């Protein structure tokens, strides 16, 4: 169940309040990003898809009859956009602003030189590994590790029990560390 204040914001947005809709987007776009990252084809640009979801939100917010179910509606919209992108099968790699490009952002904690390059490479690789997982593992992991949602929030977002969220997170994290370990082993063997 969405918090009361959020329901009020949804109601205002449904009535046509642009400012409320802006607030709603600020609150929800990270979740939408996680859905798109977990479900979109690798070739699709995340920012474009987020814009697509945002456009649908503006155009169709009036269709939300039950503000309490707004998040479920929004997730369905995001899933449809991701699947639609898959059907379009556009293999464009023009934009490098997806999550994999996160490595391009300077890391203030990393030392200069080789260490920094390796850290950025690992960042890119880790994100790629997560996106290579089944969406049922990738989405909760992205929501938890990237956006900091609680397990309870993730359970509500995905409409699954909290215990299932914990199990999926535990498995996703095991997959991830196994990939890192394997990568380390290969690197040492080179």
């Amino acid at each position: 169940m969405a918090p009361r204040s959020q329901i009020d914001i949804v109601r205002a947005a449904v009535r046509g309040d642009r400012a409320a809709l802006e607030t709603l987007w600020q609150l929800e776009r990270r979740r939408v990003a996680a859905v798109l990252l977990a479900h979109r084809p690798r070739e699709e640009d995340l920012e474009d898809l987020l814009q697509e979801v945002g456009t649908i939100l503006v155009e169709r917010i009036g269709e939300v009859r039950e503000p309490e179910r707004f998040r479920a509606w929004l997730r369905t919209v995001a899933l449809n956009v991701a699947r639609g992108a898959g059907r379009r099968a556009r293999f464009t790699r023009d934009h490098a602003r997806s999550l994999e490009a996160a490595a391009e952002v300077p890391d203030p904690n990393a030392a200069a030189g080789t260490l920094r390059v390796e850290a950025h490479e690992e960042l890119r690789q880790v994100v790629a590994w997560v996106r290579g997982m089944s969406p049922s593992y990738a989405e909760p992991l992205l929501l938890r590790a990237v956006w900091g949602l609680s397990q309870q929030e993730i359970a509500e977002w995905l409409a699954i029990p909290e215990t299932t969220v914990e199990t999926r997170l535990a498995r996703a994290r095991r997959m991830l560390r196994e990939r890192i370990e394997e990568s380390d082993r290969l690197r040492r063997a080179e």
Partner: protein
Amino acid sequence: MKEHDHDELSREDRLIHRAVDGSAGVGDWAELELIARRDAGVWKRLALGMRGELSLRRAGVALEAHLPSLPAGRPAENKRAAILVGALGWAAALLISIFWVGASGFGSLGSPDGQNDTSLGQGAPPAGSFEAATLAASAAWGEYLGAGTARELEPVILSALPSLDGTAIEVTFLRRAIERTTIDEVHEIREDDAGQLSTQAVPAMQLVSNDI
């Protein structure tokens, strides 16, 4: 990537997950230490988990800068009638419709004799406001109907919602009018076997219907 859909999640996997997640309690850490006494490799696996987690958190910081703002546009104007009906029910919508029609004088406005002009159409409206535009449009509409060539049907309410400042109701409606006029002749469009179109005048007495 190998997936573990059907694998049993070990106790160690769950404990490492909680440690990485930040949700491990004192008991979880104690259990991890017990496992580590038998297999020190658990600390390495925990470190690997932490590495992955830190990478994902840093990715989140980087990604934040690429989250777009909401596209421009007023939200969902075309769905407002449905919202209103959904919120109040059809009966309430009908009541609003009837009240609004009565209050605006549309019930008698535009009768063929043009005698029942609306008060909305009287006087020069103040410029530069939605109300002014509405009054100006009503005045022009009243003049048009007053000429006696058209009869207005009841307007159709498309939406009725609180105005942005909440002090009034913003109504969007469709105005309908039936006009009558006299013309010299009617032409019928015909298509021959070759698909060529041609027109031919139809004598007035041959018209069997007025549904033109």
